[in-house]
């Protein structure tokens, strides 16, 4: 801690929960978060469960996706913790994880797309910002790959 006077900002960035979907998304999200220098980061991957019906992807593949995402986050934040959640409802799982790890804020990067795309892919931006019980940081969508 460098004794900055921007106390509220410091508090908000004390422990950031960073939900990431895959390797590419994780790297891009972590890269845009990096300039704000969060004090501690926990990467979160939510394995989307069918909840009583088969999943979209085999468990083995989902778990390796989580590992890849965490590794990508650690390329930017080497000390980041990781957390894997299993849930049918991704937004709910993010809130639960934030409680569990005691996050000061949730930072996420919208994956863009038009309304149809958002509908089809189950975009959770709206749920995140409306239902969260702690600050939600919407990171800018800059394309990391030029």
């Amino acid at each position, binding site marked *: 801690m460098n004794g900055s006077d921007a106390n509220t900002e410091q508090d908000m960035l004390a422990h950031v929960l960073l939900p990431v979907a895959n390797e590419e998304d994780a790297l891009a999200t972590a890269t845009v978060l990096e300039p704000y220098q969060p004090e501690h980061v926990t990467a979160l991957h939510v394995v*989307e469960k069918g909840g*009583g*019906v088969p999943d979209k992807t085999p468990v083995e*593949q989902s778990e390796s996706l989580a590992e890849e995402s965490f590794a990508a986050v650690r390329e930017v934040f080497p000390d980041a913790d990781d957390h894997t959640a299993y849930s049918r409802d991704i937004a709910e799982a993010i809130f639960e994880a934030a409680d569990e790890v005691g996050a000061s804020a949730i930072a996420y990067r919208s994956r863009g797309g038009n309304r149809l795309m958002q509908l089809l892919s189950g975009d959770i931006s709206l749920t995140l910002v409306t239902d969260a019980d702690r600050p939600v940081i919407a990171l800018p969508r800059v394309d990391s790959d030029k």
Partner: protein
Amino acid sequence: MSDQELAKDLGPLAALTIGVGTMIGAGIFVLPGDAVTTAGSLAVAAFVVGGAIALLTALSASELGTAMPKSGGAYFYVNHALGPLFGSVAGWANWLGLAFASAFYMVGFGEYIQLIVGISGAVSLGPISLDVATLIAVVGGAFFVGVNYVGAKETGALQNVIVIILVAILAVFTFVGGLQADISNLPANEGYGPMLTATGFIFVSYLGFVQITSVAEEIKEPGKNLPRAVIGSVVLVTAIYALVLFVMSASLEPGFIAGIGGNQIAVVEVADVLLGPIGAVAMLFGGLLATASSANASILASSRINFAMGRDEIITPSLNEIHPRFSTPYKSIAITGGLILAFILAGDLVGGNAILTLSGAASFLHLVIYGLLNISLVVMRTADPEEYQPDFRVPLYPFTPILGAITSFALIAYIEPGVRLFGTAIIGASILWYVFYARTRTTKQGILSEYILSRSDTMPDAAVTAAESVRPDGGQHRVMVPLANPEHEENLVTLAAAVAKHHNGVVDAVHIVTVPDQTSLEYASDHIEEHEEDYHAILDDARQHAERLGVGINTRTIVSHRGFEEIFDAARTHEADTVVMGWGPDSHGSPGRAESALDELATSLPADFLVVRDRGFNPDRILIPTRGGPGSAYAASIASFIQDEYGSEITLLHVADSVAEGEEFLEEWAAERGLSAVTLKVESGDVREEIVRAAEDASLLIVGASERGLLVRLVRGSPAQQIVDDVDCSVILAEQQQNRSIVERLLGR
């Protein structure tokens, strides 16, 4: 609760409905008419015999499923037990079998819609004419593929409801019909031959129970629930089919079914008579639900089989890439979807009864898998590897699986000859696929050939020879060493041999002779000695060194205009796994004129690269700087290969702000990589200076590439290059191929 338990969320009912929902598809709604016409009063028996054959295989599938709850189901067990040759057959048969089955479900779906809408006939599209049912089937098929492509999880929840509605509709039908049944209404007994023919074409109604095993890792308490779901679904479905068939043939006057026209569907007509219009509507509705749920489940199941095949490299793993937005294996689903639509169209264009052609092909392929599945069980029990601990055991072993295998294969004889020929061609093609594609890629050897080869003395020679000749050779690790300067040859070959030895691989020594652009390559290769006197001496030396180190070596001379770029080409064309190359003022000339080409090359490496700055190779004291990440993990595994060979001392260096934290990190990191007997060194300060200082005590510095494109930066004179120049010891820069998963790279594999 552990992560593994969290991932399991399928209860017994959910598991059961996967089986029932997949099986009760178009079969019972479309085929009873044909079954009764063919087998007469034995149509009931035809379904019961089909159920019995399915049950034998269901017992084997349950045992294998509880022993190996892995994604991929039937394909996985066959590949594991019988090896990748049969694995290729089972994988392709399973994948295409599901696509044929889905095509069949969709054509059934099309016929139902057609009946509801009341349009029939054919539509001409240019030179070809398609049945209306086919067009509806194509649209329906595209819809269900699309639903799976975007991965709408709502469809899954619907599946349970659909299955319950279906069972309810059929239960009401059999109950009401059963009240009016009269044995005297049964049509004539047509004999056992026609009965088996009917079993052959209705067997498509029993495809699906094995799909439960493909989601075994998601089932709660699989040891208990998996066998219950697999066996329970077969028994339940068989009972439903038998009752429906009995009602259909016994509750109405003889000849009613035979008199139903080609454009009508027998179950619907019978329901109309028994229950009135509402019965007919319910049956129409049921048929739609059933075909839709079966097709949906089959598309999902086929992506699981693709996943497992890709994992074993029987097909390219890139097929299993996950869509960044939809989180679905979209490529696999798209290709399966394409196959389904193609089969629907082909089924119509080929002529004849499209329904019977498609269902015949699906049954043929599944029967092959079921036969192999039963044989796999016998192999697993006989070889009895230590890790084989099923919770459920097949009763009456070995009688049950042997009978299961014989009956599955025997039923194939009752499938239509044309379809049989076609199915045999697919099996032949999948064997060729193994020989020409998968064999050089897959590394997994089956339990069967391990068993035979480990007892080669007591086994018949023919069996040993056969097992040897089909053994996969994808496991052979090839280490390529491009050699240019005789001075460094020995050290490079030594390092390459250490890597090859660790992987039981071979060294490929390549001598690249660079000739000026003006000289044609053809001329140059005939007159190599003009460009380089004594050009084979370097390879002869390499051969001697490798042989002394006890590693197999191949040597080759390549004449090229481009020294540096040629290394990449050679690595790609000769399928090198690792490239060990020298780098320095006197190696391979400078990469040249085509900077952009180099960019592309170095950002997508064709193999793992070890770039050696040779200042007298001395493996005694190795230094590895690390800050975590995949690059240094790879460096660490290279160091441990060298340590195995030369008993080197390894020092790990971590530059951190806090020494205590750094030590903790380093201890953990070393333990995760399985590095023992290492010295841990934590310094704080400037990373580069600390590395250079620590390297003063080292004889060899191994630096892992932390980011992509290390080679490019090396060549262009980046900070990495400066470290290489600043230290006095030899340096190895290690960069791993990026198309591996990051996890593999993290483990340094």
